[in-house]
């Protein structure tokens, strides 16, 4: 008997939860805010669904009732992707070590 592909996806999902569990516990508490902003950015990979939806119209009508929602979702996800990664970058750039040599 063949295994339903859903089972494979479920396996990936469950194993990823475990990876997430161990990886996130190793995040230092002082970086919890950047952790939230970067998870925000990466969860916006949902944009791939939005792009499929946006391109679902045919050449005569780019905008149909389904692709409009796709285009809106693209913009929302793009705000998050750019905003999330850039603000994380900005925060991480501020974390500096003590200068060893005192003047």
């Amino acid at each position, binding site marked *: 008997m063949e295994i339903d592909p859903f089972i494979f*996806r479920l396996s*990936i*999902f469950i194993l*990823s939860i475990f990876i*997430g*569990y161990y*990886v*996130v516990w*190793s995040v230092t*508490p*002082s*970086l919890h*805010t*950047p*952790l*939230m902003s*970067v*998870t*925000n*950015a*990466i969860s916006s*990979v*949902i944009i*791939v*669904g939005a*792009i*499929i*939806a*946006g*391109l*679902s119209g045919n050449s005569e009508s*780019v905008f149909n*009732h*389904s*692709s409009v*929602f*796709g*285009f*809106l*979702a*693209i*913009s*929302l*996800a*793009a*705000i998050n*992707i*750019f*905003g*999330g*990664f*850039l*603000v994380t*970058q*900005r*925060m*991480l750039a*501020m*974390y500096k070590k*003590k200068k060893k040599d005192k003047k």
Partner: protein
Amino acid sequence: MISANLSAIFYLISGVLFILALRGLSSPETSRQGNFFGILGMIIAITVTFLSIGNFSSGFIFVLIFLLLGGLIGAYIAYKIPMTAMPELVAGFHSLVGLAAVFVAISAFLNPDAFNLGSPGNIKLGSLIEMSIGAAVGAITFSGSIIAFLKLQGIMSGSPITFKGQHPLNAIILISIVALIYLLCSSQSSHLFWILLTVSFLIGFLLIIPIGGADMPVVISMLNSYSGWAAAGIGFTLENTALIITGALVGSSGAILSYIMCKGMNRSFFNVILGGFGATEQSSSSKSKEQRPVKSGNADDAAFLMKNASSVIIVPGYGMAVAQAQHALREMVDTLKKNDIKVSYAIHPVAGRMPGHMNVLLAEANVPYDEVFELEEINNDFANADVAFVIGANDVTNPVAKTDPQSPIYGMPVLDVEKCKSVLFVKRSLSPGYAGIDNDLFYKENTLMLFADAKKMTEDITKNL
């Protein structure tokens, strides 16, 4: 156009890059590289999506336009936002992820052919279940985050909003969501799909309004988790590995953060979610309020105390963020260090309005991160320190959490500030903190209260040093 197998491999690669992005955050040195991996993963995912559809007609132009439009807005916000507004920003971003998930689900429901999910009115059962769960969780994330945003921004009052029958109402709505998903999957009716979305928006709103301002760290982490589960739900619908991996990562990340925050307050997750903490406790504390003598001082006294100290521990709290006092504080510490006084910072897990809030603010003010310590690391040092400088924190220093089993915060881990030789409290008034209870520390023999705006007081102290 690239084959489905090849694109699946690329999605897997971008999923792995996202794991590395989170892994990088285990230390500040590797974190910037981690962020770069995240960006790379995102670029791969988006490029592969374009290539696998292979449709570069007029629709493609519009996709790019909307992508750039959103990107410009996002980049603008990222550069303009002050660090003190980070909790609001994150809450706002969560709402966008939620709404994007809802939109993708709507689009897939209206035009399932484009996603290979069947035809309208005849969507594959598995896909429909995944889609409706993704849409419902996305809608809850959206409306919940909007409320969290409004509360953090101060547009909506931070105090809990409770009414009679709140919990039964929420329970009924949650059950009806499950029932709606079941009915939707058996009937494929589009009416039920819209009703499901509306009800989910409503419950997100109702779930967050009874939760008070200082519980926001838990709420933000929880919504972070929801946004991940919503993405994973959509990932199953689209059969997309990158989305499934990311959703699971974000989902567990948010859940762990909520757990850490709850532990920092010694409260159970359900206790926080059921809400109304501040409102119920206020009545009991007002009864026991009696006038007790406090010692209050001015900047000159504080400067004198600190000048004669050999080690000082700074305890920042939400009040520092409100007063934007982090830069003034750093200047004060610089002056102290010039006088060969050892200074370190002690951060309570729930200080501020989101996990790690204080650390970011101190980093912004150029405080080196190896001078900043977590509660467990530094708590034993208070006994050996001369001065504790508490700026904008209150409940997290209250010794009552260790001594009085009747107290609502009993059992909460607190910073042992009272063990210092002397304690300086920068505060606007004697009013109790969020938990609504009096802080015994104010009336201790070795405590000096500095009643002023946190920023102004620290500046004045620096002048007097």
